[in-house]
């Protein structure tokens, strides 16, 4: 009997000591600069949002956020190498939805959605229908009227098949019972050029395009819950009767081997950056909507999003 209680005591104290140490570890993270790998090339929106986060990370944690790039395969190259990185909390990678859900289902891309350990989803750029400033379409109804009278002739440019805006186009076509044509370009830059050059009638893009190119383009509708402060005159799809709230989501993931408490730490820092007023202003000025999906809420969030995306992708014929 005494042996048992001694054993219990030893076990209890070991656990307590261990907890104390991990508590110490928690308090000290980060102790050196953190590598932030972007699975796209420099100059893109993932790069820009990372650069926006950089100075605030330094302010909050007193450590540098070192940005490096691993482009290729629309992010696949980076994500397939995520779990080969050291899971010490000093290696984090940017992730994007719907990419990490859709890509593995299309073909063998070197990773599965379950391989990605997401710790935070900190913003999304809402989908929006973009038209030229001088376009005859003044409201979404104008567009719908044209689409109904001319099936298939409503040409939308977009940043690529399988991207958030493509999925939005598929869902909207279904909701509005119209047939539009999606012309896939390589990235938002090319899609915008096609719109401005009148190769297409409208673009399925993002609010960030409206923000960056004010005066050249207009937004007909945005896919958010409520009207955006930066675009007070632009109705949401919801207002107009279409339950479309979506966009390109960005978040942070860590290698699988990263311990639980470190994951929470990282999630907290990212959330703290999100609470910073200056950061919020910068992001919102560019048309982005900040989110609060921290590590605890991640599983539920991913499940819901995956269900949506998979259903849409199947309808679009992207996956079987």
């Amino acid at each position, binding site marked *: 009997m005494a042996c048992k209680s001694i054993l219990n005591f030893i076990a209890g104290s070991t656990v307590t000591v261990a907890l104390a140490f991990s508590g110490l570890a928690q308090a000290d993270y980060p102790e050196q600069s953190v590598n932030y790998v972007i699975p796209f*090339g*420099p*100059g*893109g929106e993932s*790069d*820009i949002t990372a*650069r*926006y986060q950089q100075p605030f990370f330094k302010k909050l944690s007193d450590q540098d956020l070192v940005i*490096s*790039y*691993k*482009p*290729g*395969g*629309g992010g*696949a*190259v980076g994500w*397939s190498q995520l779990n080969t990185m050291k899971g010490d909390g000093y290696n984090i990678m940017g992730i994007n939805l719907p990419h990490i859900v859709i890509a593995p289902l*299309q*073909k*063998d*891309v*070197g990773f599965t959605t379950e391989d990605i350990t997401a710790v935070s989803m900190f913003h999304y750029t809402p989908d929006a229908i973009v038209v030229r400033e001088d376009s005859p379409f003044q409201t979404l109804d104008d567009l719908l009227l044209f689409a109904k009278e001319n099936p*298939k*002739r409503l*040409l939308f440019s977009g940043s*690529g*098949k*399988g*991207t958030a805006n*493509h999925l939005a186009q598929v869902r909207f076509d279904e909701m509005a019972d119209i047939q539009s*044509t999606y*012309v*896939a*370009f*390589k*990235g938002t*830059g*090319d899609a*915008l*050029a*096609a719109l*401005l*050059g*009148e*190769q*297409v009638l409208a673009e399925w893009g993002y609010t960030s395009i409206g923000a*960056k*190119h*004010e*005066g*050249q383009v207009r937004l007909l509708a945005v896919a958010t819950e409520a009207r955006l402060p930066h675009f007070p005159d632009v109705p949401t799809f919801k207002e107009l009767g279409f339950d479309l709230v979506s966009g390109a989501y960005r978040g942070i993931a860590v290698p699988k081997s990263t311990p639980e408490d470190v994951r929470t730490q990282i999630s907290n820092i990212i959330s703290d950056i999100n609470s910073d007023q200056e950061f919020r202003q910068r992001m919102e000025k*560019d048309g982005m909507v900040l989110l609060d999906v921290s590590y605890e809420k991640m599983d539920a969030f991913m499940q819901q999003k995956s269900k949506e995306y998979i259903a849409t992708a199947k309808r679009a014929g*992207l996956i079987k």
Partner: protein
Amino acid sequence: MLEYLLQALTPLNLLLALAGVVAGTVIGSLPGLTATMAVAVLVPITFTMPVTSALIMLGAIYTGAIYGGAYAAILLNTPGTPSAIATTFDGYPMAKRGDGDLAVTLACIASVVGGLIGAFFLLLLSPPLAKVALAFGPAEYFWLALFGLTLIAALSQGNLIKGLIGGCFGLLLACVGSAAVSGDIRFTFGSTTMIGGIETVSALIGLYCVPVLIDLVAVPGKHLNVTGEQRGYRLKEALKISWQGKFNLLRSSVIGTFVGILPGAGGSIAGLVSYSEARRASGDKSRFGKGAPEGVQATESANNATVGGGFVPTLVLGIPGTPPDAVILGALLVHGLRVGPDMFTTQGSIVYTFIFGLFIATLLMLPAGLLIGRYAYRFIIAVPKGLLVPTVAFMTIIGAYSIRNNLSDVFIMLVLGALSWVLNRFGFSPSPIVLGLILGRIAEEGFVQSWTIGAATENLVGNFFGRPISMAIIAFIVLGLLYPLIAKQIRMRRLQKELTV
């Protein structure tokens, strides 16, 4: 306007321009380090500077890097940056002939001329040029890519069929990986190495540089045989040749500017198109490919002109004209700058000061470039093979890796290198393969997009053939293909006439 010029001439900006040009030239000369990378790496430094100075520095780095790619192209047959691909066609033969120093100096002068002309267009004609850029739709890009592919005919002097096979192989390589038009992943055969596709720069190094290394190691003796005394810069000679080739320089710079204006088309395509035109316009086509100075002049002026040209859509439309422009645009956004058509009026001080800064940086490139070029030349000439081969090999490995931080790119580079050597042995030159690789993506996207639009609007033929710019390009293609045949016929007729008289 004058006050902007004075602003560009402040000591800080001058220093940044010079430092940028030097840094850019050195980085661009290393195979594997591209202009995009050079700009991306140095962007964080610019965050502490005022916007105008940051822009000047980034523009200077960009200019220097595009020029720096010529060194390795001329002396090692390896384009230091993709924009220097066409420089290898005549640059390397010149070096082998012992005229490497002349080629390097010519490249410097041509780069400066091209850069100045590109900046000139940027200064005076940005808004209308931006409209021209927008008029290029998917069909136009497709035909332009096809036009570039007709260069294969010129590059495969020996055997047209082999050249075309190489071109098709290159086009096939371009399809590997994820396709932009369909989101599908193709031709990876289950390997995760190939998901990212065949990266252009590592493929270039593999196809051009590795065979050179393989051959260097095979026989003793020096790499480039330079007989006689050191002839210094050969500046007088180079200036004379440059003056003689002034129309070539002018035409190539204009071509380069216009290609730079088109989003998605950069220095590599500018160099190829201007090379093709220079060859077509010259009296003696057979000299091209064997060390004709006009070839080097045409490509180097064109690719530096894309610097100025590329800023047109970048600043006016907010759409990057070339990959480094995308990075610069991102940096501008972080600085809080908004680009757009009214940028020239509302933010005139920043824009005009920057453009003048670009002029100055380009001018500074002449002395800086000549100096660096001389040392690069001396270095490559003097270094014994025992050190040259491992150094270059080491550079290619680290360079190919750094492009995407991916070891697979190094692997692909080596495989393509061995393949290229074998194919070259049997008469398949690597240049058509490179052409196919670079132009394949543009051609495919343009084709599929045009097809989608044409099918949806039920105007397939009209969409491809009916657009004015497309028709002009198609005319050029047909002319380019038929002209040699027609010229031959005319010559035959003339000969016959002379014989019968």
